[in-house]
């Protein structure tokens, strides 16, 4: 931009530019990279767990020795360590992996670009959000090294178990407070940015679907997270100040009466926790749907089918997600009125989800589908999310939930939503926006290998879990072969574990591709995918302040293949709608 003579004066020092940056793009990339690292860590924890599940009681070669005698005496995993891995896998994946990637990463990087803003509304607040998130995450990881190990009461941390758990749980609470604070500040920033900073002409009905999804997500975070923050504070008080918010009178732990005042209620935690954690499910899935919408529209070369219906559905889903939480608590002994209420709301929320899926499939109809790597991931999202969504029905209905509650069926269900669902969508997003962030494309061949290997492996991981769940196998069992019905499906555990390790191998391809393409990927111009939304009007990568000229929006977001136009895409930012606004190398068309 500026000439080199003055660059010395204006150039910010390294730490201002890349560490404590206020630029949304840098922060977005910081979020994305940290989240990817956390995802890898969380996934690794699971790969270690899978050894114990596939070969219970057998020493884990090599790694078993490295992890030490407390965690793995004689190379065999200790039950406490198994529980730590389970709790931390969940916590890391949800709070430190997927949400920071979907909201912190993509939300930060893409949203301001798509709405034609120079940055987020509060750049410094944005930086603070990231710097609350990273220490929160690192504290969580550090808890593995304290006396008694990391949190081991599940990612749900139900008291009284979590109240009487070792010190790692206290660290979990502190980590959560930081992560929650980060998300809250971020959500304020997103809402203000989307409402106040849209470019000229960018009305709500011209917003890319991704931005709508981010807006709804931000509202979910804003209003659902504080109750968990409150609950976490109460749990900290229980653990540190000796209060009994979650502890009723008359508890006897290992033959000893607890020296507490009592009078609390453990279900209070569950209510406050699920008041967040159910909307959190939609925090995971909505940005993913946003990404899928972008990628599908771009690669089918036609407008999204039912764009307005999608927006209405997403708003409705967001709203309803606040009134379904107690379906996680059907088995706690709640009365029939409230349980009927909650199973009804749960069925209601499935309807807009069906509509969203229908819109996406109808968007394929009549297209000219380019099977680029992002499109492969976005396409795979649809059947995977469908499986995850449909299998939610038996869990949302109280009668079938009696049998399926807390079995592996639940694990399979929500992993189909989050892993081959959300994570595939996030991968689609990475392949789709990587050129915008770096100026280079990810390698397509490696990308396709990554996709197909992941797609096959991940189904080997989660599909058998439905059968294990059907057989009645409970989740979170250190050694499932204790049970006869567990022994009946133990063979599947071996399949799943090898599937998981294969999935891990497939991610190596992605890691290699990620770094290789950084150096030697094909350079791209502004708009490598011939896309229509505003982020493609900026240079790749965009400079500070994003847009060279103030962008103006002239039309709906997905005007592809408009009859009578020279190009098959009419960008939002081009006044005549006849191809690119600025001269640039033409691809195909």
């Amino acid at each position: 931009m500026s000439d080199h003579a003055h660059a010395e004066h204006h150039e910010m020092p390294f730490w201002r530019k890349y560490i404590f940056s206020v630029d949304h793009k840098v922060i977005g990339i910081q979020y994305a990279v940290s989240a990817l690292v956390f995802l890898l860590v969380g996934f690794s924890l699971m790969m270690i767990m899978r050894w114990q599940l596939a070969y219970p009681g057998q020493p884990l070669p090599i790694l078993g020795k490295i992890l030490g005698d407390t965690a793995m005496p004689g190379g065999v995993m200790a039950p406490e360590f198994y529980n730590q891995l389970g709790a931390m896998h969940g916590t890391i994946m949800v709070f430190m992996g997927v949400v920071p990637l979907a909201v912190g990463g993509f939300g930060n990087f893409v949203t301001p670009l798509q709405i034609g803003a120079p940055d987020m509304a509060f750049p410094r607040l944005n930086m603070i959000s990231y710097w609350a998130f990273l220490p929160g995450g690192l504290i969580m990881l550090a808890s593995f090294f304290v006396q008694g190990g990391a949190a081991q009461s599940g990612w749900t941390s139900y008291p009284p178990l979590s109240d009487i758990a070792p010190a790692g749980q206290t660290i979990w609470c502190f980590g959560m407070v930081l992560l929650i604070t980060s998300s809250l500040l971020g959500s304020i920033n997103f809402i203000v940015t989307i409402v106040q900073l849209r470019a000229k002409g960018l009305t709500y009905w011209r917003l890319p679907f991704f931005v709508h999804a981010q807006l709804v997500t931000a509202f979910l975070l804003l209003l659902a997270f504080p109750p968990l923050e409150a609950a976490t504070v109460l749990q900290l008080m229980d653990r540190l100040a000796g209060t009994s918010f979650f502890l009723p009178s008359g508890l006897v732990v290992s033959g000893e009466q607890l020296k507490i005042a009592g009078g609390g209620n453990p279900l209070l935690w569950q209510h406050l926790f699920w008041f967040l954690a159910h909307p959190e499910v939609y925090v995971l899935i909505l940005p993913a749907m946003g990404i899928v919408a972008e990628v599908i529209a771009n690669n089918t070369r036609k407008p999204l089918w039912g764009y307005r219906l999608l927006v209405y559905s997403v708003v409705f889903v967001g709203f309803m997600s606040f009134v379904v939480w107690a379906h996680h608590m059907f088995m706690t002994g709640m009365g029939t009125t409230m349980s009927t209420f909650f199973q009804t709301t749960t069925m209601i929320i499935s309807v807009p989800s069906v509509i969203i899926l229908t819109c996406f499939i109808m968007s394929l109809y009549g297209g000219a589908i380019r099977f680029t790597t992002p499109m492969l991931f976005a396409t795979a999202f649809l059947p995977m999310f469908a499986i995850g969504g449909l299998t939610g029905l038996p869990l949302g209905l109280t009668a079938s939930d009696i049998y399926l509650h807390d079995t592996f069926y639940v694990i399979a269900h929500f992993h189909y939503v989050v892993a081959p669902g959300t994570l595939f969508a996030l991968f689609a997003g990475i392949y789709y926006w990587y050129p915008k962030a770096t100026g280079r494309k990810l390698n397509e061949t490696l990308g396709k290998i990554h996709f197909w290997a992941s797609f096959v492996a991940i189904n080997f991981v989660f599909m058998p879990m439905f059968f294990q769940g059907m057989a009645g196998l409970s989740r979170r069992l250190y050694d499932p072969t204790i049970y006869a019905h567990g022994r009946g499906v133990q063979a599947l555990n071996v399949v799943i574990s090898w599937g998981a390790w294969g999935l891990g191998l497939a991610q190596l391809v992605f890691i290699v591709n990620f770094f290789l393409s950084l150096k030697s990927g094909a350079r791209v111009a502004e708009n490598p995918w011939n896309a229509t939304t505003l982020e493609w009007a900026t240079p790749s990568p965009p400079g500070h302040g994003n847009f060279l000229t103030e962008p103006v929006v002239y039309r709906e977001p997905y005007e592809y293949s408009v009859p009578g136009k020279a190009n098959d895409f009419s960008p939002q930012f081009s006044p005549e709608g006849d191809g690119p606004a600025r001269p640039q190398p033409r691809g195909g068309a």
Partner: protein
Amino acid sequence: MDETKYGWWLPVDVSTHGAKIDQLIAVLHWFMLLLFVGWGIFFVYCLWQYRARPGHLAIYAPVKAIATKYIEAFVVVVEVFLLFGLSTPVWLAYKSQPPDESKALHVRLVAEQFAWNFHYAGKDRKFGRTDLALIGGDNPVGLDPDSAEGKDDIVTVNQFHFPVHTPVILDISTKDVIHSFNIPVLRVKQDTIPGQRIPVWFEATDTGHFELGCAQLCGLGHYRMRADVLIDTPEDFAKWEQENAPPPQEAPAAAAPENHPAPEKK
């Protein structure tokens, strides 16, 4: 008794109410399969038919799809049926229609890390007094052996005997953390909530040796918090009750301490 065989699908159902749950699960999965396959065929057709190739152009105008509206309406109708036709009645019966107390066997279950303690009322069908302060190594439920009703009470650990074709009412409680009472073959599950005593009921239709497991993470021994479920014939159960009844005590020699320390108030 032989170990029951388990496969990759729902295990055998030996309860009177379980058939309806199984039916709901079956109907649900046929419905899900129908949607997924129907939808998958269309999906694959789209991917093939509308793949990018030379000479093929995307269609800008949105297709008028009446069919999707019908499908969505169909989904809604089926869900309403599942909800009010199949799920809710089963649930209401499961939750709010207890069997006749006089004909049922009444048992108390006290869960702890990591065992299931069953407290049977014994011959007099009355539970003895229990007190937290009496809980100890050989008295897992804190039964007062001196109370008049408690003399014939039976307490078992990880052994759940009950007769077939007899309604059983189980009052579930816990000493420490949340557990979950789960007998897959009986299609019952109920979390044990500290500070609450929650009743569940069921009736077995067949005898056999089955399993009770903990379904809610309750600590490092969660995985081995397992109990044997032994559904006996009424005769066998009576015999078992007879054999396990505590021997009549002569004098209250091993009486409990006079002043039980009241639960700590600080």
